[in-house]
C-alpha cells in the first residue's frame, strides 16, 4: 500500500526539484533529438523509420546475433536520435538474409525484443531494400580503367554489370543493399587511385526517406 499522506509530506522540496528537473531534461531531449537525424542503413525489418525509432531500445541484440557481423552501431555523427541504434557496417560483413546460418530467416529480426526490426510475412531478400549501392567513379579501379570486377562477381543479385568499357554499373532495380560489393571492394587496399580516397569506391547508401 502506498501511504499517500506520508508521501505528500515526505516529498520535500529537494525531491520535487530533482524530480521536476529530471522530467524537464527528458522533455528537452525528446524535442532536441529531432534535430540532427540522418538516414542510415538498417538491418532487415528496420526500414520503416518511425516504427523503428519508436521501438528500438539500443539493446545490441541484433548486432550481436548477426552471423555475418554485418551490423554495427550508429554514432553521434549519425544524429542524436540514432545514437546506439543498429547501422549496417559493410566493411565488416554483408547481409545474406541469414541464408547460410539460418536458412534465410533473418536472425536479427527474430531476436529483436521489441520488434523494432519487423518484416512482413512474405519478405524476401529481393523485396527488403536496405539501401542502394553507389559507385564513386573517381575512386573505382574499374572506372579508372585499371580492370577490376570484384564487386560484379560478389553481387548475389547480379545487380552490377560491366559496361562496354569494362566499367561497373549498378542496376538499381536489382540492388537490395546487401553490401556484398562494399564488403569486397578493394579500392582502398589496392593503393590509391588518386590518393584522396576516404572510403571504398562502392558503398551502400540509405534510401531517401520516402
Amino acid at each position, binding site marked *: *500500500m*502506498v*501511504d499517500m499522506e*506520508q*508521501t505528500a509530506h*515526505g*516529498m520535500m522540496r*529537494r*525531491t*520535487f*526539484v*530533482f*524530480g*521536476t528537473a*529530471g*522530467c*524537464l*531534461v*527528458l*522533455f528537452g*531531449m*525528446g*524535442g532536441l*533529438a*529531432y534535430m540532427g537525424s540522418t538516414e542510415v542503413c538498417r538491418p532487415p525489418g528496420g526500414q520503416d523509420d*518511425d*516504427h523503428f*525509432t*519508436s*521501438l*528500438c*531500445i*539500443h*539493446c*545490441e*541484440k541484433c548486432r*550481436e*546475433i*548477426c*552471423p555475418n*557481423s554485418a551490423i*554495427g*552501431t550508429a*554514432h*553521434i*555523427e549519425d544524429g*542524436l*536520435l540514432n*545514437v*546506439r541504434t543498429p547501422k549496417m557496417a559493410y566493411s*565488416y560483413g554483408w547481409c545474406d538474409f541469414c541464408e547460410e546460418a539460418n536458412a534465410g530467416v533473418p*536472425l536479427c529480426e*527474430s*531476436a529483436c*525484443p*521489441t*520488434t*523494432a526490426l519487423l518484416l512482413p510475412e512474405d519478405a524476401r531478400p529481393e523485396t527488403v531494400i536496405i539501401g542502394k549501392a553507389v559507385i564513386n567513379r573517381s575512386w573505382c579501379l574499374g572506372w579508372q580503367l585499371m580492370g577490376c570486377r570484384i564487386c560484379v562477381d560478389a553481387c548475389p543479385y547480379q545487380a552490377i554489370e560491366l559496361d562496354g568499357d569494362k566499367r561497373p554499373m549498378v542496376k538499381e532495380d536489382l540492388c537490395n543493399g546487401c553490401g556484398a560489393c562494399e564488403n569486397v571492394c578493394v579500392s582502398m587496399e589496392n593503393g590509391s587511385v588518386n590518393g584522396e580516397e576516404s572510403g571504398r569506391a562502392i558503398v551502400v547508401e540509405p534510401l531517401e526517406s520516402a
Partner: protein
Amino acid sequence: MRRMKVRNLRALVATFVVLAVAIGYVTVTGLGNVCAAGVGLVSSICPVGALSALLASKTLIPRTLVALAVVAVLILIFGRAFCAWICPIPLVQRWLPDHRRRAQELEVETKSVIETVSRSTSEDTDADARTGGKRIEDEKGSCASCGEGTTCTAGAKMKLDSRHLILGGTLLSAAVFGFPVFCLVCPIGLTFATLLLVMRLFAFGETTWTLLVFPVILILELVVFRTWCRRICPLGALMSLIAGASKTFRPHIDDERCLVTSKGSLCRICAKACPEGIDVRHPDLSRHGVNECSKCLECVDACPVHAISLPPVPSRK
C-alpha cells in the same frame, strides 16, 4: 571484515556480468547487454525500455509483453536485487570520489552508533533527529512498541520520491515524443555502450565522437548529480514499485537474538549499514520502505549477533 566480503562479492558478480556482456559483444551468441539479456532469440528486457517502447509505439507487442511479464515476476521475487548484484552503476561508482566519501561517512556514523550503544544511554537523539524526529521511547518491549503504537507491518509502506517522478517523466516523454527518450541517457546503457566503443576502437580502429561524449555524460550523471541511484534512476523506481507487492526475500529479524528486542539496547547498526535507507528494526522510522531492499546483505553482515536473514518465504511468528 565480513562486510567487506559481501561488498566485494557483489562487485565480483557485477564485474562478471560486464565480462559476460563483453564476451557476448565479440561472439555471435546474441547475449545482449542488460537492456535485453538472454541467449540467442530468447531474452529478458529492461522494464523501463520495454514500457517506453510500448508507449512510444502505442502498440501491444506480444513478445515484448511476455518478456516484460517474466521480468515483473523476477522483480516480484527478488525485488531490487538487480541494483546490488547486476547493475554496473554501483561498480562504476566505487571508483568515484563521492562514493568513497560516503563510505567514510558511513563508517563514522556507525562508530557513533556503537559508542551510543556501548554507553547504553536511553536516549538516541542524534539518530532520531535524522529519522524524522520520532523517538524510540520504550525499547524493552517487542517491536510493536516502537514509534507510538504503530506495528511493524508499517514496513510494507512505500514512499515515493524524485525517482518516481522521473519514472513518470520517462514514460510520458516516450509517449509524447514517440521514442524511448530516457534510453538515450540511461547510464546503464551508456556504460555498456562505452565498453563496446572501446572494444571496437581496439578491434577495428573505429573512432567516433561518441567515444568522448558517452563518458562525459556518464561522469556528469554519476559525479555531478552524484545521487543517481537515490534520486534519479527510474529503473530503481519502477522496481521498487513492483517490489511493493513482494513477500519473498524480505529482511527478517530473529527477535530472540536482536539486541533491541532481547536486551533492550539501542542498537541501530543494521539501519546504518543499509545503503537504501531502510531501518529493518524500525520500519516505520525508516527513510524507505522494505520495497526498496536491494538484497545487498549489508545488514545481514553488519548485525553483531547475526539476527538478520532474508528468507525466501516469509516466516510466520
